[in-house]
């Protein structure tokens, strides 16, 4: 079957199998910034935004996404134009091996889009799917608080 998805604001058509999941299709089509790990909804590595909300792409039937918009971490920012969150992850030591970072940053982006001044507890809840085996989470929380503060400052200007 052929489906249409706006990936990082670019309209794309994909030939997919009716039981394929979004993660597999995105990676096959070259969106390698989307990571897979547990393939069971447990680790958060595969998180992307579907119409602005975070979803586990490993459990998302791709046919369900037909006609919707998907944002990967590269759609949030890339090396040439990093998003404040991505810069804050680097600055605060919130990424070591980096495998969890695409999912973690994506979850954090969804939070800050709705809540520009989150508490630590709200950050932990909004990222409770994003397992990180390296950093111990504290730095990630710091990074999101840091990015939120910067974004608020930029917004005021």
């Amino acid at each position: 079957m052929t489906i249409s998805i706006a990936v990082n604001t670019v309209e794309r058509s994909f030939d997919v199998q009716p039981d394929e999941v979004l993660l597999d299709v995105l990676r096959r089509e070259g969106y390698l910034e989307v990571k897979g790990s547990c393939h069971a909804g447990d680790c958060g590595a595969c998180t992307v935004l579907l119409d602005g909300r975070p979803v586990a792409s490993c459990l998302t039937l791709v046919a369900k996404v037909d006609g919707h918009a998907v944002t990967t971490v590269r759609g949030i920012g890339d090396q040439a134009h990093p998003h404040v969150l991505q810069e804050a992850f680097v600055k605060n030591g919130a990424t070591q091996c980096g495998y969890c970072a695409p999912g973690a940053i994506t979850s954090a982006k969804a939070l800050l889009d709705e809540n520009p001044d989150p508490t630590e507890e709200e950050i932990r809840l909004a990222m409770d799917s994003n397992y990180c085996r390296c950093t111990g989470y504290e730095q990630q929380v710091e990074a999101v608080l840091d990015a939120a503060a910067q974004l608020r400052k930029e917004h005021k200007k």
Partner: protein
Amino acid sequence: MGRITEYYHATSLEDAFAKAKQLGPVAAYVGGGVELVLRRNPEITVLIDLSRCGLDYITAAREGIEIGSQTTLTTISRSADIRQYAGGSLSWWAGHIAHNNLRDMITVGGVIGRNQPWNDVVPHLVALGAQVRLFDGAERITPLAGYIEAKQPGIIIKGVLLPAGNAGSNGFLWRFTRTLQDISTLHFSALVSSDGKLMTAANLVFAGRPGHTALYPGLSEELVGKSLSHETFARVAEMAPDLVEVGTDLRATGEFRRELVRAAIVNLEEHMTGVAQ
């Protein structure tokens, strides 16, 4: 889910039901799809998507609140009406169970359709006295507790109704888990109404026993008409471990679960009386 040969976007309830009826047991309705992807039942070859059938709604009316079956946990957690219902227990838990990247996927219809023994939403809805609006060519309403006992394949869950009569009661939910993200070793949900002195209604529900959701009317009755006192709850905490059917599985022994049943009633006492035991 085995080799899926067709993904069908139904355009209405009638369309979805007709397709399912024509195909029989090889067809499955898709809520969030989480469970269907994870479990991959080899019998299923056709998926019927309900997301274009207008089932993503929350409406508040005189009879109560109706939640469309395609409504996700996140939407439930954010609804102002559900936040005010029975002390906001359903809204709080809908925003805290599973994971942040699943709460926007998991639908209330999918949760009821699957109803694992350790499920958190179904027992709480049963405690809240929820009913389901079903569609099998025509609509009918039936208590959720009865529906999960005698689920009939092919019938569409259209929505869940929270009765207005329970809106002012107190809803409670405790999931006894080994870690925050773990599934329940025992799940206890309750709805209690009181006039400040006496309890006027109660629904006590246990799940993850390891068996499925079960409402305990006999035990619930032990609270009704009784005072909000330590004596009342101490008596119920004493009798509950013998009345609630618990068993042993890899997660816990029956003995351990019996202790959790007692602890659940102590928790309820603390929340109802405001006095820690």
